[in-house]
């Protein structure tokens, strides 16, 4: 009973992440790759994404400081981050990355600095929301295990 409620909550949380534009269709593609062999694939990839993107963000940050007006370099670093966002369906974050790249193209330092702050904000917000989502999924999963009686005839 409880677990189906949690499952519903998780589904509704996911729906609102889509409705608010945090995630796009690519996230579904990633979740669809889960199966018995890789039941936690989505969470694993998302965890990988946040580790990797934290590094990429730090690369951009350092480049903004150490290489003033080096728009080519800034753009190259941001391109990597944008690619990762795209691969997991991090839609809002991807848009901010694209804004940053547009400003690089225009040679607009102020614009770059502003949109970089937005990239970091979106990164933080998405991380919070996805952590909550996967935690809820995990709780729903755990409850299933606890409620099943021991003995033969148990489902895995």
């Amino acid at each position, binding site marked *: 009973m409880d677990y189906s409620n949690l499952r519903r909550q998780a589904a509704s949380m996911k729906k609102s992440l889509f409705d608010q534009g945090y995630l796009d269709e690519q996230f579904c593609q990633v979740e669809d*790759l889960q199966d018995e062999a890789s039941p936690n694939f989505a969470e694993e990839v998302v965890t990988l994404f946040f580790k990797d993107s934290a590094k990429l963000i730090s690369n951009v940050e350092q480049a903004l400081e150490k290489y003033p007006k080096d728009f080519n370099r800034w753009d190259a670093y941001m*391109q990597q981050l944008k690619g990762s966002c795209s691969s997991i369906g991090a839609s809002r974050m991807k848009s901010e990355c694209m804004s940053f790249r547009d400003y690089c193209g225009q040679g607009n330092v102020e614009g770059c600095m502003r949109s970089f702050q937005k990239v970091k904000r979106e990164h933080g917000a998405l991380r919070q929301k996805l952590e909550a989502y996967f935690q809820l999924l995990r709780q729903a999963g755990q409850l299933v295990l606890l409620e099943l009686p021991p003995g033969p005839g148990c489902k895995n």
Partner: protein
Amino acid sequence: MSTTTVTPEPPHVLAVDDSIVDRAVISRLLRSSKYRVTTVDSGKRALEVLSLDGDNVHMIITDYCMPEMSGYELLKRVKESTELREIPVVLMSSENSPPRIRRCLEEGAEEFLIKPVRASDLSRLCSRLITTLR
């Protein structure tokens, strides 16, 4: 030694991408279609694998934009090599640039996929390529 009626080994794909996230996704995509996958993070590593085990690689799928050696350069090296040139090479890129795509196809790429790559892109591609090899 010839194989008889035993189930043949699944084809082996070499996936090349400098992005750790993309490597995870591409290899899962390929594995869920029952291919064997080796992932490497650079063109240089890819060539190392190919020099050791090239006979056993049935397809190369590589990102275009990589530091040091681009996917395009890797494609050229493969197609210039007598041992490796028959291996189909697929390029992937998040940038949809017709001149880039044209150049890769002219250099012998089988296909150019726009990222993010979907399961449907891969299954369509793999079944076409790998059956023609058999």
